[in-house]
């Protein structure tokens, strides 16, 4: 009995498929979800989601958000998410550099802008870590 996994970001649906199990990074540690899991609502930490399907593993990088598991449906809401295979390292490095540059003159910025830039930096480093792990 598979579980249905859905990963959605403000830019659109990133992932929707039936999978065997999924491991999600939460603020209180990693949680593995198998079919029949009790209903769960948890806060997602930036990190790697590992999806296992027919014995093969797939990794996705996500930024902070929420994960919900009800019945056999796992819904993940995140600011960003990307499949490890699609990460473009050069682009990520560029984005990280830009955000870090911008953070340097953070004095004139509102707290929210700083928060957003910090999350960009964090998400970029998650993606780079994941890519490095792949090799």
């Amino acid at each position: 009995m598979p579980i249905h996994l859905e990963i959605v970001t403000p830019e659109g649906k990133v992932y929707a498929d039936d999978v065997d199990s999924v491991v999600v990074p939460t603020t209180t540690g990693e949680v593995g979800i198998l079919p029949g899991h009790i209903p769960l609502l948890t806060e997602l930490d930036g990190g790697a989601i590992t999806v296992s399907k027919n014995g093969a593993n797939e990794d996705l990088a996500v930024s902070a958000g929420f994960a919900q598991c009800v019945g056999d449906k796992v819904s993940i809401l995140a600011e960003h998410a990307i499949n490890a295979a699609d990460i473009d390292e050069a682009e990520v490095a560029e984005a990280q550099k830009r955000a870090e540059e911008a953070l340097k003159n953070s004095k004139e910025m509102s707290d929210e802008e700083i928060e957003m830039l910090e999350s960009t930096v964090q998400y970029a480093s998650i993606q780079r870590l994941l890519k490095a792990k792949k090799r």
Partner: protein
Amino acid sequence: MPNTREIRSRIKSVKNTRQITKAMELVAASKMKKAQQMALSGQPYAALLAEVLANVSGRIDNVEHPFLEEREVVKRGILLVTTDRGLCGPLNSNLFREVLKIKDSARFVSIGRKGSQFLSRNKLDLLADFSVPDNVPYLQIKQIVEFMVEKREAGEIDTIEVLYPRFVNTLIQEASFAKLLPILDLDEMINSLHAKGEAPYQPSNDERKFKFEPDPATILGKLLPLFVNREAHQAVLSARASEHSARMVAMKTAKDNAGNLLDALTLQFNKARQAAITQEILEIAAATANN
């Protein structure tokens, strides 16, 4: 019958109008594509967020949060989303009609210049007006919503609703209400956000109790504001898509009308010219016959 010169100058002015409306149509069309894309890609996120909340809200007890608390509605708080510029068909006037239908006492926050003008002209209670650029930055919407939430906590308003032109497709935009706070019934909102052709939302039949990590208060404390901000953001995105679609359609109609008018005028011009020529020939013929 007007003489040929008058007709010619009219033809000229109609041609100019056609050219201008055509240019505006093209501009609106390219903006529309981008705005529609943005509105549509945000839809699944907003829908899923609402679904998550709907699943949770039925199955929690003893969680208190100001967003969930239902209280007597004395003043409604309405965020009116209109356009900054006109020439977009009946888009704004449809919204204004809805506003005038409201019989309860309400206070307004407005996005868009047209809305602010309308509210002050009708001496309605305008709390604040904001202007939001075309790309609708999320942070800015967040600030507007937070402003309204503050007013609600201070007791100045009791609900937060968004009145906006909901984007259905390029030809149809509906003036509709989205009730953001208090969060009571979400089914309607979820279904309106679901893309066409997708299965309508069904509550899960999993009846077991929810487990929250780290704990319900922390999770809901973050999830609820995110929900309200995102739904408002989605509404404004949808309004922008509606604006550009409506403008494109209005400009296309104007362009087509100018074309029709031009055809009619050209016919009239040719007739008048021919009549003048015939007249002249007749006069010459008559003159030679008399000699």
